[in-house]
């Protein structure tokens, strides 16, 4: 058994037994749905339906119903895409990178963070899909044989790399998540009494019985999947950034983009995890498992990645001046003093200044402050993508084609709609799925549980 320093804060508070962990996690699934859950899912489904309606309107009418024009050909659509992909980075980072670094605190948050990842990536995939205009021809992005057209796809293009990166990331995250869920579904299967639920969890648990050999394989599988998912996490947002960086648009053509985008993604992903988990832990009474120490650890990740993002912003500004390229320097001067300066300064405040507040231990360990700041960070990260995309496009080399982007109701409706779909999926997940990796948590009970720790001190 692994030992942990006795003075380190326990990861599982309260004097829990193995059975308590099962009861705390499975209890809400077996019991009836709470009123709050019903209200929330009704609201989010209404928003989701509005979003789906907006998407259908867009598809049936054409992307002219967005505010896009000849100059600004990418705006909210790609902003939302990059924003959602970024949010989708925390889950696999938590379960893969933190597994490799043997960070035990990940076990309380990895399950729901991964669920969030999967739903966020689904939302992200919506945007390039509908941005194609004719979504029924979406299969053209895959390398299909020539009967479908005269040409193969272009493997030199970052847009195609993105197709591979996003689909690999989505499917690998999904199986990684599901493999971890199988033993927990088995726990639920053996505890529910309603025949229909028992049947459903029986199917979903794949007949898992917890044999020693199966656990042996399970642990090897988790480790190897974590090993290959780690570079995957970093590659996905690097490739997303190359959509911009390999172009010749001033403001996009920047070699700093891959690391800058990856840290921005982790930054926004952790912020979204905080927003969701701070509510979830209260609603499902999981305060003993996801407590202040977990929140503090995540805030430390936020401050590190937020500072990297801040340094990247300043580096960009410096290099645009230092390069001596007038178009490049104009792009950045225009960013902070042009028509979109409000967006730029919102981004700067939310992403560079506000996370620095976490240097104060009081703020870092305050749940209310964390909740507010996590939303501020998410707003800031949305504006970051908006600033990068729109300010770089709206000033062309030819002043005659200078333009501006004004979002339409459809732009707004689809964005809000994806938030609704995302929340609906996440709420459904919290109702029917084990929100904590309960069987994994049992393995750290004896090294990091409160009652066992007190014994060590004696």
């Amino acid at each position: 058994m692994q030992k942990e320093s006795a003075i380190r804060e326990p990861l599982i508070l309260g004097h829990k037994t193995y059975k308590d962990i099962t009861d705390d996690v499975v209890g809400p699934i077996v019991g009836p749905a709470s009123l709050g859950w019903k209200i929330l899912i009704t609201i989010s489904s209404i928003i989701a339906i509005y979003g789906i309606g907006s998407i259908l309107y867009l598809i049936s009418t054409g992307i002219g119903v967005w505010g896009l024009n000849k100059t600004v050909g990418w705006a909210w659509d790609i902003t939302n895409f990059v924003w959602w992909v970024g949010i989708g980075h925390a889950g696999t980072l938590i379960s893969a990178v933190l597994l490799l670094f043997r960070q035990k605190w990940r076990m309380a948050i990895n399950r729901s963070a991964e669920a969030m990842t999967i739903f966020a990536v689904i939302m992200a995939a919506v945007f390039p899909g509908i941005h194609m205009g004719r979504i029924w021809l979406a299969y053209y992005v895959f390398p299909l044989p020539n009967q479908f057209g005269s040409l193969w796809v272009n493997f030199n293009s970052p847009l195609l790399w993105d197709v591979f990166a996003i689909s690999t990331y989505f499917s690998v995250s999904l199986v990684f998540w599901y493999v971890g869920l199988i033993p927990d579904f088995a726990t639920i299967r053996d505890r529910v009494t309603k025949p229909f639920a028992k049947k459903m969890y029986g199917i979903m648990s794949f007949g898992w019985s917890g044999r020693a050999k199966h656990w042996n394989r399970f642990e090897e599988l988790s480790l190897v999947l974590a090993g290959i998912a780690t570079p995957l996490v970093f590659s996905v947002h690097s490739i997303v950034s190359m959509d911009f960086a390999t172009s010749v648009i001033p403001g996009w053509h920047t070699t700093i983009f891959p690391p800058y985008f990856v840290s921005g993604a982790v930054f926004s992903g952790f912020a979204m995890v905080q927003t969701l988990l701070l509510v979830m832990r209260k609603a499902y009474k999981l305060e003993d498992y996801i407590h202040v120490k977990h929140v503090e650890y995540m805030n430390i990740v936020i401050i590190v990645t937020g500072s990297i993002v801040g340094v990247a912003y300043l580096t960009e500004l410096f290099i645009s001046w230092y390069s001596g390229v007038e178009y490049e320097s104009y792009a950045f001067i225009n960013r902070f003093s042009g028509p979109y300066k409000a967006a730029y300064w919102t981004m700067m405040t939310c992403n560079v200044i506000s996370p620095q507040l976490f240097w104060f231990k009081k703020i870092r360990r305050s749940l209310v402050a964390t909740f507010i700041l996590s939303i501020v960070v998410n707003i800031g990260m949305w504006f970051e993508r908006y600033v990068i995309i729109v300010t770089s496009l709206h000033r062309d080399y030819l002043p005659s084609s200078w333009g501006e982007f004004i979002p339409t109701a459809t732009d707004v409706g689809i964005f809000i709609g994806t938030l609704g779909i995302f929340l609906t999926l996440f709420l459904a997940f919290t109702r029917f799925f084990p929100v904590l990796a309960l069987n994994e948590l049992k393995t750290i009970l004896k090294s990091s549980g409160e009652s066992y720790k007190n014994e060590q001190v004696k």
Partner: protein
Amino acid sequence: MKKVFHVMYDDDEKLLVAARELVSKGIHVNEVYSPFPIHGIDPVIGIKRTRLAITSFMYAMSGLSLAVFFMWYTMISDWPMNIGGKPSFSLLENLPAFIPVSFEFSVFCAAHGMVITYLLRNGTLPGMPATNPDPRTTDDKFVMEITTDTNSMNAQDLESEIKKTDVFELSIKDVKES
């Protein structure tokens, strides 16, 4: 007729200690059912390290070669194109642009191949029936399965040896040998 002993413990460490004791007396433990992996049980009951990681490497290599071959075929052999002044003449010249897709596809094959192998080898597939002897083994109990047919000891001796360990519950069943 064989007798099947399902020996239940209420703690993972108790089971580990008991398993060590019984194995040292020459008793063969067929199977252990637990709600989470018990570290250190594998060598005691004679489970070898899995070779899953090797299969994952093989899947990754197949994915890599497949991706590189496919990109060479489409971009260089079948239909070479000059895109934005970046012509496709040879694999070596184009290789830097092929790195992202090669990497992604290797990961794709490694992860999915390994998971499919894992599920097939375990026999855990959608709709399979659960085989754990007691529903509590997915909660907080730990069960060791010992049978008379894999042990030279007779049933009475086995039972008395098992009872010497810190048992929580013991169930003995007669099963027809197939």
